[in-house]
């Protein structure tokens, strides 16, 4: 916080298209910083289907989501992009002109970036925690209900109810055991989509009666002015009972939401950003939208479309950033200057 980061290009989203944008910009000497809300690169490929094979990446008869991300990270290494993870862009303010655009971008944590161009490569939007379908849950959020753990200490001495059966639920149940007064893990079935050693560790703690496991689903919450006292639980047998707790941590995976992008002054069409097909630029000069988040006649939401889009967007970005430099089209197979940039000459 505090210091302003200055960059040529700011890429919003570290999915496959955002990563390949680093490459195409880099070939044109444009330095990039990359922001993502997730704690790692790869976007949907890494978050939704790391193990699933993709069959339509040119040159790869089959490659997994994570495999593609790993390859892209290797491919962009020569351009040494700076990644900023766990960052959500809160606002974007134009500080330049249409001919010489510049933007001040502020994250939710208050970090500030000043950039000549912005490439929005945000896919389906930002990943955000799924909210469980519990009436009135909003009133307890950030006082007694949390979708992420930032500081474990805030739960010291509390009766913590963790709901879910994935890695996040299991990891936090184990981590908070010993910090919280009592940890109760609740899941709708007695099987978990989590690392087996975490599941075993949890079962061991339950056997030793140091942790509780309850089969069921939370259907309601009780408590005064946002302070939780009980969760109303529907058990496996259909019975309903109250479970005393001070804090509830639901971990039901992630969903994608457009988020603050809607407030950036960009034209939107059904949560997508319309662009031209020459430069993939939005209605705001200097802001490009690439990959799944853009729309234009004939758009296909394919990774390969995004790769094409960033190559063309980079050409226009070059004109903004280096208005006096002539851009000659070159091939990586034959251009000694490109090969030098790639570190292979």
């Amino acid at each position, binding site marked *: 916080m505090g210091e302003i980061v200055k960059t040529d290009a700011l890429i919003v989203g570290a999915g496959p298209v955002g990563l390949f944008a680093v490459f195409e910009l880099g070939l044109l000497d444009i330095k990039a910083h990359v922001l993502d809300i997730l704690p790692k690169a790869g976007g*949907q490929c890494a978050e*939704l*289907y790391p193990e*699933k094979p993709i069959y339509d990446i040119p040159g790869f008869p089959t490659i997994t989501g994570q495999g593609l991300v790993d390859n892209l990270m290797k491919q962009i290494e020569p351009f040494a992009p700076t990644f900023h993870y766990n960052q959500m862009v809160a606002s974007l303010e134009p500080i330049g002109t249409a001919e010489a655009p510049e933007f001040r971008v502020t994250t939710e944590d208050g970090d500030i970036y000043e950039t000549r161009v912005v490439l929005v490569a945000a896919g*389906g939007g930002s990943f955000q925690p*799924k909210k*469980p*379908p519990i009436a009135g849950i909003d009133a307890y959020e950030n006082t007694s209900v949390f979708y992420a753990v930032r500081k474990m200490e805030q739960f010291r001495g509390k009766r913590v109810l963790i709901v*879910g*059966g*994935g890695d996040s639920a299991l990891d936090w149940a184990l981590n908070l055991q010993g910090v919280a007064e009592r940890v109760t893990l609740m*899941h*709708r*079935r007695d*099987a978990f*989509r989590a690392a087996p050693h975490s599941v075993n560790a949890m079962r061991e703690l339950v056997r030793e009666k140091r942790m509780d496991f309850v089969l069921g*689903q939370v259907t309601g919450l009780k408590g005064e002015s946002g302070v939780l006292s009980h969760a109303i639980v529907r058990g496996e047998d259909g019975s309903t009972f109250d479970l005393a707790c001070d804090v509830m941590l639901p971990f*039901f*995976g992630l*969903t*994608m939401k457009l988020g603050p992008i809607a407030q950036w002054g960009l034209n939107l069409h059904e949560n997508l950003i319309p662009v031209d097909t020459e430069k993939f630029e939005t209605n705001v000069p200097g802001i490009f939208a690439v990959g799944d988040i853009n729309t234009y006649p004939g758009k296909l939401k394919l990774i390969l479309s995004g790769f094409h889009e960033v190559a063309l967007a980079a050409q226009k970005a070059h004109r903004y950033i280096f208005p006096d430099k002539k851009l000659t089209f070159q091939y990586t197979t034959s251009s000694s200057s490109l090969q030098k940039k790639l570190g292979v000459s």
Partner: protein
Amino acid sequence: MVQITFIDSTGQSRSVSAEEGSTVMEAALRNSIPGIEAECGGACACATCHVYVDDAWVSKIPPAQPMEEDMLDFAFDVRTGSRLSCQIRVTGETDGLVVSTPERQG
């Protein structure tokens, strides 16, 4: 072609024809059935094509595989009959299948 009926959370019913060998999710997308998002495109990776299979049909379709059960943990408002429609294969046996869509997909 077989018939599949989708009932949305307001009770409105829509019947569509689906090709054998495709999935219930694909039939929903091809016919623009509201309430099915299918963010991951049918990879059993997102739980946004969640449906409730009608009670009369639950035992007539093959049960969920462990991978689908795991993804269902992340679906919205899971009940008996909850399935991911990308994992329900359309066959001659499913002619007349009735599924409901949840109020929202996560």
